[in-house]
């Protein structure tokens, strides 16, 4: 369905400019920039949005602002002949102006599943006329996902993982059903300890104690949102969980874990290894 929605844009791209001339590409949406790099097409990038920060080289490109508040003149200033953007990008007025300026604005699905990772790779590869590189990348990712599912199929007793998005002032914000974090936990062969709530939510202490997660998963970060192992053990509710008592606390880089780009299989494998370590868990996770 997505592809049929995209068809008019792709067609417009083909009509407006010979594909080879698309040498000025702006990419909007964190994971998408990563795909452009993985396809080896980074030389064509002339701009990116605030949410793109991997690979580090992407930070050298001009930043066109937050993906949902794109400035029309800011985009035109970069003189792009193609804009590849995540579905939620906007505002609609800016997209309309790009269409008036005959600059193809290709929107790509932002769902968090293996199928949509593949779809993003193929759509971007086709749009950039790098179909061969796209096929190679899809094949490589498919092999990685196949390996992963063989490994996760052997899990007999799935562990219950709780994802902590933030912990400001001791208030825990967790990931419920339908979140990218839940999708990654399931890919890694575990279950989300909070699959009965929707989206990212602040929890009460009682709910945490009742959910009794086996593993706590967090993004590697510092500042007010950071939570040390000692902080977890000292927390009135987190301290009671099997995760805290057995020291199964996992920290991963945020974009690596939740980017849903070319490194997703790798990230899921790393998460699996951290949730089901072959050696007894260390304090550091």
């Amino acid at each position: 369905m997505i592809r049929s929605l995209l068809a008019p844009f792709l067609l417009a791209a083909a009509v407006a400019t010979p594909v080879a001339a698309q040498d000025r590409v702006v990419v909007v949406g964190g994971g998408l920039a990563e795909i452009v790099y993985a396809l080896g097409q980074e030389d064509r990038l002339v701009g990116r949005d605030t949410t793109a920060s991997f690979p580090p080289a992407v930070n050298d490109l001009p930043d066109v602002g937050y993906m949902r508040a794109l400035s029309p003149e800011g985009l035109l200033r970069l003189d792009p002949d193609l804009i590849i953007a995540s579905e939620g990008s906007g505002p609609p007025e800016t997209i309309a102006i790009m269409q008036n300026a005959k600059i193809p604005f290709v929107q790509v699905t932002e769902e968090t599943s293996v199928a949509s990772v593949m779809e993003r790779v193929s759509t971007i590869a086709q749009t950039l006329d790098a179909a061969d590189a796209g096929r190679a990348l899809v094949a490589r990712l498919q092999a990685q996902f196949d390996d992963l599912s063989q490994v996760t199929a052997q899990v007999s007793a799935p562990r219950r993982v709780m994802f902590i998005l933030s912990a400001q002032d001791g208030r825990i914000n967790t990931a419920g059903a339908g979140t990218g974090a839940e999708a990654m936990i399931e890919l890694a062969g575990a279950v989300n300890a909070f699959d009965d709530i929707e989206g990212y939510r602040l929890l009460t202490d009682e709910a945490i104690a009742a959910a009794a997660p086996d593993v706590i998963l967090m993004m590697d970060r510092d500042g007010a949102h950071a939570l040390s192992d000692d902080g977890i053990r000292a927390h009135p509710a987190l301290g009671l969980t099997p995760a805290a008592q057995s020291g199964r606390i996992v920290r991963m880089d945020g974009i690596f874990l939740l980017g849903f780009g070319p490194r997703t299989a790798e990230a899921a494998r790393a998460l699996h290894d951290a949730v089901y370590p072959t050696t007894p868990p260390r304090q550091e996770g």
Partner: protein
Amino acid sequence: MGGSDRARPTGPHAMRGPSGDRSLRARVTMAVLVVFVAMTALASMGIGAAGVSLPQVLSKLWSGEALSLREQVVIFDIRLPRLFTGLLVGASLAVSGAVMQGLFRNPLADPGIVGVGAGAGLGAVLAIVLGSFLPAAVLAMVGAHIIPLAAFLGGWAATMILYGVSTRQGRTSVATMLLAGIALGALAGALTGILVYIADDQQLRDLTFWGLGSLAGASWTKLAAAAPIMLAALIAAPMLARALNGLALGEAAAAHMGIAVQRMKTLAILTVAAATGAAVAVSGGIGFIGIVVPHLLRLLMGPDHRFLLPAAACLGAGLLLLADMIARLVIAPAELPIGIVTAVLGGPVFLWILLRRRGIVDM
């Protein structure tokens, strides 16, 4: 600036006062302001991240040469609607502030204080968080304009409730209205809080950006919907000037001067609701224009509303265009929300005004 400058309106005597000196100064200020608006308007057509220059475009138009597609889009799709939106929104916010301050005889009154801003904000938040639950037919009809529309309805509803609460037997109590406005503002804030709580991450980001205000979403269709409302309010406002001058002496005195006080209050409230509701609807929350501009002008030209209201329209429009240029250029190719710029510029100016007042008028 002599010691006769006072931030509080002092009524018709002030401008008939010792000389025609004051009215002359008002006229000079007015002329300077008109030039200021014209210059900011020209600048905002000529300056922008995309690097399309106005002289070049004009010379092309003059010689009948065709504009490039990029020049057309930048000038006609981006800068022109943005210019008109900025002019109208800036003028509406400043005039609303001036009318409100005159009506309440309180230099701190502002549409934000009587809950109109909070009501509009609640409408917008409702649309952002719950908009997707509307029936498909309604969504198809209002489309992308659902947020501005909801903001306008929210501001309107707040004004109507306010008016209903504070009017008994055809008499509006301004004091009750001020208090009711504070209560309404708190209630709208609490309801907004509930919606913020149930919003998802993306909606939260949208809410934050909306609250900071921006002219980036300006478009002809939005302008076509909001401009008539703002224009009507801006045309109605000067008709209130004499009555606002009279009201500065107190309601009884104003009535003795032959002013239909109740009718005038109703008209003033409707004007402010329409202007603020429509302005907030197209541009989100933009602070400080409504409160700083009238203050600044009273210092420059005295409290006579006959001059104050048109001057506020000019200064508000010009300042907003200036703020918008800063918002567009400082971090190009990205842009700042304009509410941040007006607050950064307006906050210190407001403090300066307060300090000045303390020095001149013993408070």
